[in-house]
């Protein structure tokens, strides 16, 4: 099984680089994944990651994009409550990139 190493500890990931067990996650994992993509995580990035983690704990799935944009808009200001802002932060897409950094599995099915 592929894995990534953070501070001397190995974390199992799947073939697309998503963490196998979301509960194993720590901030170092997100930092390492971002670093591998050449990205330095700012406070704005962390706001999204923290929201995703909190949401997942309650709902056991990543939020749909409508919820993500609305909630980010509520906490960070209406000018940030849109997909454009999220794509500026996470160019590969909030679902693919931000969820991966946050340690969440990828949603499956007719999506």
């Amino acid at each position, binding site marked *: *099984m592929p894995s990534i190493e953070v501070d001397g500890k190995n974390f199992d990931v*799947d*073939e*697309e680089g998503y963490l196998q067990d979301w509960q194993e996650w720590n901030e170092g994992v997100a930092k390492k994944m971002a670093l591998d993509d050449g990205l330095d995580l700012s406070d704005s990035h962390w706001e999204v990651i923290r929201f995703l983690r909190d949401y997942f704990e*309650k*709902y*056991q*799935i990543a939020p*749909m*994009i*409508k*919820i993500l944009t*609305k909630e980010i808009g509520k906490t960070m200001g209406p000018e940030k409550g849109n997909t454009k802002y999220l794509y500026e932060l996470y160019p590969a897409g909030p679902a*693919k990139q931000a969820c991966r950094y946050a340690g969440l599995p*990828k*949603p*499956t*099915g*007719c*999506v």
Partner: protein
Amino acid sequence: MAKTPKPDELSKIDYTPPQTAWTETPTVYKEGVWCFGAKPKNLETLHFPNPREWRVVDEDWKLPENWQEIVLNGMKERLDKYRSFRVFMDSCVRCGACADKCHFFIGSGDPKNMPVLRAELLRSVYRGNFTLAGKILGKINGARPLTLEVLKEWWYYFFQCTECRRCSVFCPYGIDTAEITMMGRELLNLLGLNIDWIAGPAANCYMKGNHLGLEPHTIVGNLEYMLDDIETVTGIKITPSFNRKGAEILFVTPSGDLFADPGTYTCMGYLMLLHELGLDYTWSTYASEGGNFGFFTSNELAKRLNSKIYAEAKRLGVKWILGGECGHMWRVLNQYMDTWNGPADFLEVPKSPITGTVFENAKSTKMVHIAEFTADLIKHGKLKLDKKRNDNLKVTFHDSCNTSRGMGLFEEPRYIIDNVCNNFYEMDELTTREKTFCCGSGSGLNAGENMELRMRGGLPRANAVKDVAEKYGVNMLANVCAIDRAVLTASMDYWVPSVKVTGVHELVANALIMKGEKERTTNLRGEPLPGMEGQE
């Protein structure tokens, strides 16, 4: 992950067949074409054999030692059980009528994607092991022994068929290639050889009732966000019910509609229409999936996942079931559900409480497609519609493989679109109705890692869209399927970026004049309505 080639590169397709005979031409396993193997936890959840970590690129697929015996026994069992399987193994005359009808062959030029040859991968093993001529004559009779190479080739190509059944329309013998692929996949599943994009949703559905794994409170939460948006657009507050006993109608739709854009707009369409009618209906957080990824795995699993719909209808005591816009859901409902989990004698023959129409076609299954239901409402003048609200759209309609070839639903969606849009244009008739081209990613092949395959398979459909985009300025591709809504979006972005994707009931809801609504300035996507630019 493989980088998908650009459209101009991908559209250079080489149709020259290899110089060697097909049995002598080794299969090249191309990244971007295959999907990741099923994860052990998903197979365990489904109680499927041989759960283990394995990777397609590894030499060793970690099969049980007696894998040949397992496959051949499985084949024998299915040949005895399904007469169709034996008939389809025996009756092909290799006329080649199907060869150029497959979207994967058209998009890839790979001869093993000709339906006749894809089936021959299985047929050759059938001949060698189950026919006298094949056993005696061997290779001369087109027989092959079941080697590891053959098995891997099966895996590669049976997950390059979307079970769309377009080839079957042109086959003079009526051979149903989807059924051959289904048998091929069943045999592979005996060894734990599924893809994870199918095994994952199926496991979710088995445990939580839907492919996405939406918990009951997540379903309610997602719908509440949609209801907020509806209120913003229309000023109307809608409060649907969940798991309500004694409701007249149970509503079941694919879970993609509850999660992914643009399916969420279709879902808002259902909510608005059903509210406007004052329909006595309920959502279920248990039977919360119309689709059935089990169907892409084995008949046994499909039956298991399907059973919850009737079970929930019985528990809630509804009279009949209304189903949302989905593709393969309707093939299962229309052709299998009744004998798998029926007869649903505890339900009544569906009758529209608004028009009094009795849906005789659903007499046995007790399930009505929402396109049939809405077309009937329009026919009886029960909806107030303002077509002009869709005047910014030039719409074409993509027939989903399963609703068209699996249940003959041709006219209803067209009738609806015609009544809610002023600009509706048909694509070339060789690509619509029963001859429709697959979206390119059906039957569980809508993963991310096989994007090259998906774009190749999506090319014929995209070509026909491009044609009407150039001729008439079409900018919206309507459909009645959740997989379509997800995957045609990707395919249009790639091949015809000027065209967006919508479900039919999004168009309905935009045109629907609701009692007590405020003056609408935007559509459901929050974009200004025609003539309302700058006022939203």
